[in-house]
């Protein structure tokens, strides 16, 4: 069996990662993180906001992804992510602001606030901050 698999990460704006031979990947599945090695059984899962890491050529890369979707095949992994950012691309100040805003909304007791959305926003902001710290 091959010891790498092909990894692709696609976002609406561009193809972030194209044809990378990765040795392993960790993806933030909606029901928990998944570790993927070459030869994984075919699988389809939704992704939640979180850090996605993969190892290619011995170096480990980390990306922050928001909502997404992944297809895993034995020799290929394709990830559709609504946003994917490398640590150096993350605007920490903006993430901090978004976090503060989401927290405020959650605490506000305002009936107009959509709590699910505020919670999602909070999670996204927290992921960004965490991933940005890893560069």
């Amino acid at each position, binding site marked *: 069996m091959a010891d790498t698999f092909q990894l692709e990460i*696609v976002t*609406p704006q*561009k193809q972030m990662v194209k044809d990378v031979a990765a040795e392993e990947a960790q993806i933030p599945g909606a029901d928990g993180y998944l570790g993927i090695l070459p030869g994984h059984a075919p699988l389809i899962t*939704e992704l939640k906001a979180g850090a996605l890491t993969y190892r290619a050529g011995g170096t480990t890369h980390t990306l922050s992804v928001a909502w997404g979707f992944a*297809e895993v*095949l034995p020799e290929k992994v394709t990830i559709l992510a609504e946003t994917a950012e490398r640590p150096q691309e993350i605007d920490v100040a903006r993430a901090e602001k978004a976090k503060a805003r989401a927290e405020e909304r959650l605490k506000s007791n305002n009936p107009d606030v959509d709590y699910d959305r505020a919670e999602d926003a909070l999670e996204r902001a927290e992921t960004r901050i965490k991933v940005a710290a890893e560069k």
Partner: protein
Amino acid sequence: MPNILDIRRRIRSVVNTRQITKAMKTVSAAKLRRAQEAALAARPYSQMLTNVLKSLIKRANIYDPVTGEPLHPLLAERPEKNILLIVITGDKGLAGAFNTNILKVVSKFIASKPEQDIDVECIGRKGRDFMRRRFPAAPTRRTPEDIQAGAAPVQSEAPRAGRVQITGEYVGVLGKVDYNFVAALGQDVVQRFADETIDGVYILYNEFKSVIAQRLVVDHLLPIKEIGEVNISLAEEATEEERKRAVEAAKTAGVGIRPVDTRAVDEAAAKFATAEVDYIYEQPPVQLFSELLPKYISVEIFHALMESVAAEHAARMTAMDSATNNASDMIDSLTLAMNRARQAKITKEIIEIVSGAAAQG
């Protein structure tokens, strides 16, 4: 007799104008190229999403087995009482008839739905200005910031400002189309449709396949009739003359006029999530389907925006090409007039000298 100095001044001013229009044309051509690349880069994602949805339809029961009604609210058709119309125009002018043509179709569309209440959301300053002059604003009106911050959808209890009202104005989002904004807008639209505040969503924009293949369309976004198919309810083709001028401008600016070749990209995308294997579904297909469907709407809006931006640059490029040509023509005829005036002056002087000499001799 025309003054030579005046004509010279006039020529100099037209030459300056021509320089500006020429520069604007070059800039638009470069921006058009970038917009086309961006549209191409966005293609795999939308194609893959469409493919996943199509394959999920086969696996999940999205229709009620007894009544045949679709189980997902975004697929449900109901009588149209309230319509949402999203209008995409440009933020800036000097793009020939680009904005005017779109706004003409807006009026036509609104006239074609005399029974329904229409909420209008404008993306682009030109559309907003036009709508503001004609229709009242809704009690709550959102901006890009509201949408991004996740403001609650418009309350339906508030009295309507009129049969046609403006519920959203998004200005300044076209320069660099941010997917986060579009995603938030899509989510908002989906929410309102699911709440039954609105019964149908239409999006009006300038479709842009290539310089020669563009038209104005009204796309029936919600409810979804068939995934992966654009559901056009009104289309206005570009006139032959407009097309000819666009081709002319594209040629001189070095922009390709054929549609970009997307076959390789589409083929790769078609393989996504459709392999002939038994997938393990981490979540039940039905759940995946209902999570993915709203994203599909965002992608559609994003797609419309990208095409509209490309079309705007193409229109500006064409308009500036015409302006440059007109300026050149004007310079030619002014130069001719100036030469004539100069010649007339010289002839007159010679006659004066000759007749002066004749009088003395």
